[in-house]
């Protein structure tokens, strides 16, 4: 058995709310294998996005152990986590989170620039071409449709050739047809780069495309369903 790319052991996440501590995640333990696509499903507030953010090193666990690509994230500070994400991890959000003051190509080139990569713009251009937005590369986010913005976000997540892609409801803000196109693109990217994919979604048909689906309810893992395939 190969070593997992992601391993969580007894992870909990508790945040302080106005009315006191709120348990977001409770005793989560799971493993994600290299090249696997994992779907996370569950009702709103079940903690699936929080779980994804913990795995991406965007959130710090309250207790437990998170190991990603052999690196124990719980031991890292904010800046070390930022350095870790460069090149290892790509994240796609439901709300795209493009930087409004940068053009499409600049948005895509930014993670490469931060990683000190050479020819950041050449690679960004190629990635935008790959998502079909080569002609729109000098447009600002406000000049792009929702679907186009999400394609830019996909290109940005993939441009550093990350070993793991995290997608947090990437079609949540898009209409059906556009969402479908984005999902196709996401899986294509994953296939092309051979990355592991962790996908949070509400949509059952999207979840069915994953190798494995985990359900969450009230911050705990509920079901352990294998994908239809």
């Amino acid at each position, binding site marked *: 058995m190969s070593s997992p790319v992601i391993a969580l052991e007894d992870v909990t996440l508790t945040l302080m*709310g106005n009315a006191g501590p709120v348990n977001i995640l409770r005793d989560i333990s799971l493993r994600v294998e290299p090249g696997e696509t994992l779907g996370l499903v569950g009702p709103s507030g079940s903690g699936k996005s929080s779980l994804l953010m913990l795995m991406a090193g*965007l959130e710090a666990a309250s207790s437990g152990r998170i190991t990603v690509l052999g690196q124990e994230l719980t031991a890292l500070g904010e800046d070390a986590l930022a350095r870790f994400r460069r090149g290892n991890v790509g994240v796609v959000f439901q709300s795209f989170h493009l*930087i409004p003051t940068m053009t499409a190509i600049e948005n895509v080139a930014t993670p490469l620039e931060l990683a000190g990569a050479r020819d950041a713009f050449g690679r960004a251009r190629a990635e935008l071409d790959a998502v079909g937005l080569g002609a729109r590369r000098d447009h600002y986010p406000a000049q792009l449709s929702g679907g186009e913005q999400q394609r830019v976000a996909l290109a940005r997540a993939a441009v550093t050739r990350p070993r793991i892609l995290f997608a947090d409801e990437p079609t949540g803000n898009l209409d059906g047809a556009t969402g479908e196109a984005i999902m196709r693109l996401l899986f294509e990217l994953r296939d092309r780069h051979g990355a592991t994919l962790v996908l949070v979604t509400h949509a059952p048909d999207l979840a069915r495309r994953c190798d494995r689906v985990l359900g969450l309810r009230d911050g705990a893992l509920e079901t352990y369903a294998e994908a239809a395939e």
Partner: protein
Amino acid sequence: MIPVAWRLATRELRGGLRGFYILLICLTLGVAAIAAVGTVRSAIEHGLEREAAAMLGGDAKMEFAYRFATGEERGWMDRHAAVVSEIVDFRSMVATGAGDARRTGLVQVKGIDDAYPLIGAVTLAGGGTLRDALATRDGLPGMVAQGLLLDRLGLRPGDVVTLGTQRFRIADRIVTEPDGAGAGFTLGPRVIVRRADLAGSGLLGEGSLFDSEYRLRLAPGTDLDQLRDAARAAFADAGLQWRDRRDATPSLRRFVDRLGSFLVLMGLAGLAVGGVGVGAAVRGHLDGKKETIATLRTLGAESNTVLLVYLIQIGLVATLGIALGLALGAGLPLAAAPLIESRLPMPAAFGLYARPLVEAAVYGGLTALIFTLWPLARARDIRAAELFREIETRRRWPAPVFLAAILALVALLIALAVRLSGDTRLALTTVGGLVFALALLLAAALGLRLAARRAARSRLSGGRPALRWALAALGGPSGETAAVVLSLGLGLAVLAGIGQIDYNMRHLVAAELPDRAPAFFFVDIQDDQLARFVSAAESEPGVERVETAPMLRGVITRINGVPAREAVGHGHWALSGDRGVTYAAAPPPGTTITQGEWWPADYAGEPRMSFAEEEAGELGLRLGDKVTLNVLGRDLTATITSLRRVDFRSMGINFLMILNPAALAGAPHGNIATVYAGPEAEAPLLRAVTADAPNITAISVREAMDQASDALRSISAATRWGAGATLLTGIIVLIGAAASGQRARVYESAVLRTLGATRARVLASFALRSALAGLAAGVVAVIAGLGAGWWVTARVMEADYVFAPGSALFVVAGGALASLVAGLVFALRPLRARPARVLRARE
């Protein structure tokens, strides 16, 4: 890291400076004010330097009090200088008309020789030369006078006036006098006559009060230090005062320096207010960038990269603001140079001077850094998780290293202010006052917030929803209250302070002086005129009291055998020039001896002296010390045998030094008199006592005080301009705060209107909150101004403080009004916006 940060920073700036305008305006204004004041100060300093020789009247000047140079002394000068010009300078009265039509005017007479002026030229309104104007025609020597005298006495060229017992023909009006600005503060307008024509005036006899000046034009390359030392050696103990072109007008220069420093420090106050705006603008800007920063963090940006990105951005905008400020601050004085020059009583050489610009740029840069580091440090702490979670997970305070950096920068700013102003006490007092005022305003803002929160929940606002909403907003977490109080408060506090001080100064002159000050000082009363003078004065109706004393002048040359300046080690006023000296057999009425004993009435031994207690303390003099005075070129050493309490503010006859009569026996002298009378008695009194004695000079205390308060008023006007600049910056900050709060108000208005509030009611609530915050700023400003006013009046002027209600009311109302207007302007959009659209956009 830097190239990436630079690229990211400049990428964001491409979209323009939106969000940075307030920062830009605040810095531009603050830097411009400091650069402008500094440029004018440098222009004056360079002007004084350039015109030093002209203002001094020569390359060097040797001055004697009360006497002319002896033949031997004059011989020394002739040997060492290429040309020597002898001038006599004194106060006297010019009279015109006779009987009841007789009018007199106090003048400052300059008696010149043929060599005058060694440098420059006197220009006359008629366009002729000075030599022609002063020439004797029809038996009457000529006199030229400043316009003020001619206007006061209704004189025209050709009219005849008397100066002492000599008649003169008014020849022309003086337009410029090359050495005029170097003369310092004079009580009367200037008149120039030929020194030779004064021979028959009876004004330059022994015992008369006059200065003789010998201006030297030196051969090129003369070593001024060497010549000064030679002069001091040759004229040791002769009462010589030396001055040369390197420091021609020290007191004027000191005054310009101090006023300039003070105004620069006032500019710093403006910059501090601007800094509050800069901080708020940066905080607002970075709040809007929270998502971008969190995204960058998601993409792998380290916290220091984030810090650098925004530090570069703000640095670039700040640099632009500082550059604009420097251009304005240097350009405006240059553009207005002719106007400023025409209004300045001293020469100025306008140009681009590096020092004030560097000073302003450094102050601007430091202020920008101090006020932006805090929000920058907080932005550095933004975590990627903030992208998807509203919970604020950052610490409230920036990391300790940033707090330490901010404190270090503040310390550096204060150290620079002290160093660059050249006056530690002034700088520390002003900076301390500023810090205190800012702390007071901050405390007031917090207090107001708490009080408003409490009042919003009390019965006071029950049934008054507009008031309750206003109070709730003031007590809420938006920070609007602090922004208004801080931005308006400091400028208003300075204005309030000036208002209180100005009022007290005027009150002192108008109300307090007449109660205790004499109406006139009369000087140069000869011994044989004294009895007649006293009886003439006392027989005038309305005259309450006449006091007289013998009057001589002497220069303190040595203390216990050591040259006075060396013995004391600093420039005390008692040592700068000659001082009045008198003698008395018994302590004058009202004298309080605090130490030692007065001499016996018939004492005729070694000279003894009674010294003013406070000044003795300042000079380090004690009983038994020996003070050497040069009186009329002769040295006289007296032992201090008593110290007296002297109240120089009483405006009566007061002397620093009183000697026993025998010590000054034989020294020719005049007498001084003070006459206490009501204002209505002044004119007849003047006519009665000077008609028969034209050599007697009358100085109206009221006019002198008016003149002094006019001079003070000019200073307070300059200060008011400084406060105006601070206030303008404050208003810009206020507008910035109102503008940044607009979005929240649009939403608030939409919700309130959805809930059934009319637009009038919403408007009333917005107006109330603005006015209340402005009112609070005004009240705090008045409290701070009151403190400053009390301190200056009671501690500096040593007078009773009187509250100035008008100025206070103006400041409080002004604060409320400014805040109200700014608030209302930015209330229009919230009121116009349709609630449905606002709320839908928010979803």
